[in-house]
């Protein structure tokens, strides 16, 4: 049986919110201690970030392809379970954060070896974007609407499709796939800028989902789900900023 929260909350630009819903269920009968709150979601995001930093530190100090690939695969499985079983988010979201830390630590070492100082730049810009967009959202400077959601979801799907085709072309003899995705020319840098912007605007959808979720008083485990969705977007944003910075320094 599908959880009531999924009947209430549907799709956002973030793939983790990709659930269908049928009605407008209410959670008024839940006790206050079992309802989703903003504070709870932010605290849980902090826990996930700490877990991610912890394993990223391990992977940074002991660079090992097995750790990286293992982290990527486990992270993907944990993400899938969280998306399809949000009630398990309390246990799968921390696993996702730990696994992604291993992956991110490893990939950061590779970039840092080629472009010294790039890691701290990417981390600073990622969290800088997070804080700026949070302020823009909270103050109402950016007001997400249905059309905004449509554009961000569509653009995210389009980029996903492009990356998928690129991987397929690379895997089946198409050289390096779609050329400009990796190039440091004008098109390549422009493409990366667009992708960074789309990834960043996904954060606004995450904020709106969390804000409305706490207004409606969704069940407590949705705090983990909201924190997980923010983590997914932050991981994507970090990787895209890392890629953009590397193109700029080539």
């Amino acid at each position, binding site marked *: 049986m599908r959880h009531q929260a999924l009947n209430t909350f549907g799709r956002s630009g973030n793939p983790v919110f990709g659930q269908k819903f049928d009605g407008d269920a209410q959670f008024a009968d839940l006790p206050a201690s079992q309802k989703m709150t903003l504070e709870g979601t932010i605290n849980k995001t902090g826990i996930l970030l700490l877990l991610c930093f912890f394993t990223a530190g391990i992977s940074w100090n002991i660079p090992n392809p097995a750790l990286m690939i293992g982290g990527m695969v486990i992270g993907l499985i944990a993400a899938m379970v969280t998306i399809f079983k949000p009630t398990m988010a309390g246990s799968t979201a921390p696993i996702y954060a730990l696994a992604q830390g291993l992956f991110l630590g490893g990939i950061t070492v590779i970039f840092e070896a080629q472009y010294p100082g790039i890691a*701290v730049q990417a981390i600073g810009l990622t969290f800088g974007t997070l804080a700026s967009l949070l302020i823009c959202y909270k*103050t109402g400077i950016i007001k997400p609407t249905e059309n905004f959601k449509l554009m961000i979801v569509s653009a995210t799907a*389009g980029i996903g499709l492009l990356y998928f085709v690129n991987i397929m072309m690379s895997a089946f003899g198409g050289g390096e796939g779609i050329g400009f995705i990796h190039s440091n020319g004008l098109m390549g840098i422009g493409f990366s800028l667009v992708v960074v912007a789309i990834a960043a605007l996904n954060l606004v959808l995450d904020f709106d989902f969390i804000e409305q979720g706490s207004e409606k008083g969704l069940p407590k485990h949705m705090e983990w789900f909201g924190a997980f969705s923010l983590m997914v977007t932050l991981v994507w944003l970090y990787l895209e900023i890392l890629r953009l910075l590397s193109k700029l320094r080539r």
Partner: protein
Amino acid sequence: MDLNTIFFGGLAVLSLAVFFYFGKFKASKEQTDRDDRINWTKGSFNYKSCLTIALGIFLLFFFLSFLGLD
């Protein structure tokens, strides 16, 4: 510690502090009291439009790549 680390490290710490402080407050009335808020509670999402735009974006970049632009 070089300037790069001080500047971007400081930016990261400051931004996290802003996130953990302001994230716990409700959004302003200007944000919450609107008629055109995203309605997460009903299935108003237009999948056909989404797919069309997504395919458009994909084809645009794919065509540009086909032309050999990089």
